[in-house]
């Protein structure tokens, strides 16, 4: 994807030979998707994510029990045929709560990342394209936001605005934007000095056209990679916030909140109440990272 860079299989080729063996230029979306479908890393990650998406969308219809139904006679029941993952302190089916609990995280994390990417891309384009004073001023602001620990900023905002899905999306999007802006800015700095930008100036194109129509398509690959990596972090952040009690209010099934509600009874031997939501979070984060790796290696080839 990076111009002039050769595929790993070709190795080091002297400059004069390069033009012959080079799979030159950017890949079309079709070749990218074809290569992704041949990447085992991507496929495994995608399979896990698809599984959780199915759970998030249709979970209520195939979960073995109502995730909210309390069975006060079967609290803290261990794994059994009736409750494959056991029950929690209120006698709710852990398996059903894990399945239905995918919903929140899979709504909030991608939306928040999308918002952060859109914001960060616009910011990065402006910084990289205009440079100079604009870059210096916006750059300092971005660094200020980056200097604050993500969780502390998020906690402050959620406390102030009250926990809800839109709040979480906006807060996480806001704290992610500077990170993406930095990546985009670096890519734009390279593109800005290429002659096609000069050619655009010479036919009278204005700054917005040059930024969004000329430069943006050329910096999409790093943005796409950053986006997939950020989703992984977003899942983590959502889980952390709901663990801290800043997610959707109980009794909504939620992995982070369920861990928070039940971790105090691990010492009593009721490990399944914590382990399965934790595994769910881990599997989703790993899966998203596998997808990110797959996307990155295909785009970098």
């Amino acid at each position, binding site marked *: 994807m990076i*111009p*002039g860079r050769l595929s790993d*299989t*070709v*190795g*080091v*080729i*002297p*400059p*004069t*030979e390069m*033009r*012959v*063996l080079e799979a*030159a*230029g*950017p890949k079309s979306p079709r070749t990218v998707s074809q290569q992704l479908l041949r990447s085992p890393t991507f496929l495994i990650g995608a399979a896990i994510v698809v599984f959780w998406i199915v759970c998030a969308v249709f979970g209520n219809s195939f979960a073995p029990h109502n995730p909210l139904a309390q069975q006060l006679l079967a609290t803290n029941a261990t794994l059994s045929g009736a409750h494959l993952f056991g029950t929690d302190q209120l006698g709710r089916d852990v398996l059903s709560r894990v399945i239905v609990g995918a919903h929140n995280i899979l709504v909030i994390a991608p939306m928040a990342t999308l918002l952060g990417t859109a914001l960060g891309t616009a910011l990065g384009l402006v910084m990289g394209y205009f440079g100079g004073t604009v870059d210096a001023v916006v750059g300092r602001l971005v660094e200020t936001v980056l200097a604050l620990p993500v969780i502390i900023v998020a906690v402050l905002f959620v406390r102030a605005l009250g926990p809800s899905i839109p709040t979480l999306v906006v807060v996480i999007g806001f704290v992610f934007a500077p990170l993406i802006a930095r990546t985009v800015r670096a890519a734009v700095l390279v593109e800005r000095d*290429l*002659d*096609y930008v*000069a*050619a*655009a*100036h*010479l*036919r*009278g*194109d204005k700054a917005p056209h040059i930024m969004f129509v*000329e430069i943006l*398509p*050329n910096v999409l690959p790093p943005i796409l990679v950053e986006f997939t990596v950020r989703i992984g972090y977003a899942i983590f952040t959502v889980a952390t916030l709901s663990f801290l009690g800043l997610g959707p209010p109980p009794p909504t099934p939620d992995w982070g909140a369920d861990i928070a509600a039940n971790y105090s009874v691990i010492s009593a031997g009721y490990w399944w109440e914590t382990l399965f939501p934790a595994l769910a979070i881990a599997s989703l984060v790993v899966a998203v990272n596998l997808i990110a790796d797959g996307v990155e290696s295909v785009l970098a080839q």
Partner: protein
Amino acid sequence: MTAPAAPIEHAQPVTSPGDALVVDHVDVTYRVRGHDRLAVRDVSFRVGRGESFGLVGESGSGKSTLALGIERYLPRNGRVSAGSISVNGCDVLAMGPEALRELRAKTVSMVYQEPGTALNPSIRVGRQVAEVFEVAGLHSSEAFERAEAMLAKVQISDPGRVMRRYPHQLSGGMAQRVVVAMALASDPSLLILDEPTTALDATVEAEVLDLVAGLRSELDSSVLFISHNLAVIAKMCERVGVLYAGELVEEGPARHVFDHPRHPYTVGLLRCIPRGGLRKDHGRLDTIPGFLPSPGAQRVGCIFASRCALADDRCRSEAPPMTDLGDGRRVSCFHHDEAAGLPRSTPVDLALPQRSGPPESVVRLGSVSKTFTTRGERVQALVDVDLELHRGETLGLVGESGSGKTTLARALLGLIVPDPGSSIELNGEPVAADVRGRNREELKTLQIVFQNPDSALNRRHSVRRLIGRAVTKLAGLSGEARRLRVIELVESVRMEERHLVLRPSQLSGGLKQRVAIARAFGGEPRVVVCDEPTSALDVSVQAAILNLLVDLQVAEQVTYLFISHDLRVVGYLSDRIAVMYLGRLMEVGSAEIVFTGPHHPYTEALVSSVPTIDGVPPTRIRLSGEIPSTASPPPGCVFHTRCPRVLDGGICERAEPPLVEVEPGHLMRCHIGVEELRRLQAPAADNH
């Protein structure tokens, strides 16, 4: 294996026990995405002891692959899949890792194209050169002494100082000398030079070539010289092999091959080069039609048949064997007797418009200066440049790198804002210094074709969009009118409608440059800046682009400001030439005068540094020393530090001469009078 016994149809390379290098029926294969692709096919040649052998070919011909194969230094996916290679009688392909290390350390040295990347940027030069001696087993203090002596040998005037420097502190020419010194340090029996001067200025190239030629006679190394530049090969090599698409098509003594080529490809290649003072008035350059076959393509018959005007059914069905022509010449062509009479593929006739009346000024630059400030240091990239462009003419702009050619072009276009006090006039009207302050009429008047189409064309946009946007913005067309204009433009650069949907990565270098030209002509420009438009292209492609530029100029009466470091190309295309040095115009005059003299001593040096393919090389005016830094130009005449004709009495060191009209239409910046220069340069001028 000896010459007389060889059958005439299957000539073997003549080998003798003393050969430094024998390449025998070698194939090199690259494995790309699971498929084997043959990059070099059945190549045989030998380099005798002390001999200099040139391999010439365009990109994709397999020259560098072959060089890497000889060193067993092919990339991981490449291998020598057939044949044998021996250096000093030892089979390179059978060597184990230890023997191979020994071979690379002591027997074979290589010099690459980019001196900047051949040296480690974080290690001082002295350390790097000394390392070569340490590998050979010397102690570090002794190695340092030998390194210093070696640098002195490559004519570095203050080796001690250079050794304490880092590579980025050296100029390109100096760095390449260091690389040559390292290559020769082990006293190799075979020196491989892969495009060693391609990245250097003509004046520096001439120096490095002289140096290599001098050292060769001294050190008794054999040389394998690889270049796309036929003139450089003609200058440096006794024998030459011509590679085409991975095959050796012709081999023989360099002089004979270039004077009487016997393979149609060699004939075509030589005709693509504007040489022997050829100018556009004499007609179009010839070109080689078609495209290089893609590497690894299945071949039936002669590999060149699809591009050859002499090809018949036999050529298309049967591969021509290497035929021995005697005198050490071999050629693989059925029609080698008729090669000299190869029909032209491009008609020569070109109706240049007759110019009458006084030249009409289109652009006038008035004392344009540009000062860059980097880290508190003021660098004067342009100093009071006054220049006029006339309607329908080509003004060639020449000078070494760093002379301010590109800065001048960018200032004219408004991409760089010149210092206050500079004026730019279009058709007599002053225009805004910044491109963003210019109106559509002014924008469409001035356009540019950039050097590197990969950078100049947005790689995410299709050809239709690339040209269409220019038509929309500059010609103000939309809808059906725009569609028709785009097609018209694409056809005017000899491309087809089917190319419209393609993206730049799907086009060859020549086609990309055509798209860039079509885009520049989108709004019927009056002046087009051509900034080294052919320097990234092969000669056969270059010829086609030069023809296209001339045809468009004839049709549209457009003015070119043509920047190039290749004086033959500038000479072919230009009506007038301006010579720049350290941001100043040194000479402006008609192409004829600037080339043949009397000319400025700097121009004289530039002109004589161009290697020629024909006949005896001209007596070269050597330039001593490095190009001074633009940040601290020498006092007086800026050229006096390198001028071979500097005057006694110190006027050159004290006062900067003005740019004055020494003859009608001929401006020069020199203390020496034009008549005196005419007298001084008279004997040299005969040779041009």
